[in-house]
């Protein structure tokens, strides 16, 4: 007999936070690269001397710029996710009792 219950599995809050941060910061970095490099030619920032060929230099600078934007956006998203995940919940009137304490701990993702 096949079960009618769908499989239940969830990412831990920590993995969800990292996953969301990676993905949203990636989207932000894409848009940011597009806007910034549309207005700014990166070779004019003092990198002209790095390579004799601009055609070879630009893709490298675009790539570096993209990863720079991604890492900054990831730090912002990641820290936000971490802060949200570890925010202490409002204490219930029963706070202090061992049961409430452990429930709060498990909500925060502590084992």
């Amino acid at each position, binding site marked *: 007999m096949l079960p009618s219950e769908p*499989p*239940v599995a*969830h*990412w831990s809050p920590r993995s969800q936070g990292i996953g969301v941060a990676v993905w949203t910061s990636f989207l932000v970095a894409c848009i940011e690269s597009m806007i910034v490099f549309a207005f700014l030619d990166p070779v004019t920032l003092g990198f002209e001397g790095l390579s004799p060929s601009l055609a070879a230099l630009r*893709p490298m600078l675009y790539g570096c710029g993209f990863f720079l934007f991604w890492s900054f956006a990831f730090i912002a998203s990641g820290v936000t996710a971490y802060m949200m995940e570890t925010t202490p919940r409002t204490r219930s009137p029963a706070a202090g009792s061992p049961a409430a304490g452990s429930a709060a701990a498990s909500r925060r993702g502590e084992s």
Partner: protein
Amino acid sequence: MTTTAVVGPPLYAAQQKIYAREVHGRYARMRSASVIVLLGVFYGLPWLRWNGRQAVLFDLPARKFYIFGLTLFPQDFWLLTWLLIMAALSLFFFTALAGRLWCGFACPQTVWTEIFVWMERLTEGSRTQQMKLARAPWSVRKFARKSAKQILWISFAIFTGMTFVGFFSPIDGLVGKIAAASLGGWEAFWIIFYGFATYGNAGYLREQVCKYMCPYARFQSAMFDRDTLIISYDAARGEPRGARSHDAAVRPAGQGDCVDCTLCVQACPTGIDIRRGLQYECIACAACVDACDAVMTKIGSPVGLVRYATQAEIDGEPTRLIRPRIVVYSVLLVSLMAGFAYAVTHRMPVDLDVLRDRSSLYRELDDGRIENVFTVRIINKDQHAHTFRLAPVKLPNAVIDAESPTQSVDAEDVKSVVVRVRIPPAQGHGGQDFAISVQALDDPKLTATSRARFFSKP
């Protein structure tokens, strides 16, 4: 099949792979058609030629985008912004009208997952065979099947990465470089990066991207109303559910149409039970609709127990197609599209950037005249070379002393010229606004003007 009776959501549970059952039906056919068209465009477009060059090429090193007959320069960035706004608005419009059409049929995540699942079925067999293989101890047969899948996945992912880079670096040259093993470092890096992202997202993460990472999945329900098409289970017709005896036509008294075969659950790529009502995990792929319709046909009941329907329809009310939000979205969308079409077709094929020389505000010449120096960039977006005449505008008695007052600019090229603008002595004080214009000698309609500021003695 091992049952997974977990009470309450565990905080740390190993993610279980969802083995979605293969379904056949009209929505599966629609998705296949959509996958073929979209992937056909993605993989085919870089190979298309136009006027002797790649039809669609985002030439980042040269800072030019070629889209068929159109050449876009960084100055045309606003067109791209406009396009993105139109894309976002279309998404809102279609979401309000027919729910998550995007998720079920057009999202790259769905489209590539579909191909990867197809390869998985090709090498590992049906849902049941795949689950059996996963449980089986390692053997030559298991190793062979798993390796075949990995070889297919990895080659397809590399091909995908190559195609992606082919939008930015001419693809025929790219293939030649791969064949000669002389690929540039960044090209190789992006092929592997994009290939790996495809492999990971379509091969392993799949529905988890939609459930845990995708922002659209979280806010799309804000665009829903009672008249939005959603995947609905007709509970009034289906309940109380229950299995039937072998003679399926004989129905115990009071029992609904749902025979609780659970095929809708097995077919679901996100692992939900649609009979519990609409859930945010539902990507509206309609696999459950196809699965249920097949069963209903088999037992001789009308199809549509699970179907694309609006909440209003399920509740027995008429569905209103025209609602304020639909009207607002469509009016906005149509006007933006018309504006975009006009802007693209009536785009002036010449553009001008004027930058002041930063080293000095002004210079007084020996004869007393005042000189300002500018760097002028003439952008010829046309597919023919033109010779342009530079002229000062709205600055009386000014003359331009460029290296040459006429400048020839190649087709689809940018030329920087140092321009000295001079006015007679004692004409005006401080700063005054003026402009520099260019006009093509062979076509007086081809003209562009850019504002600048002229400084003289205070």
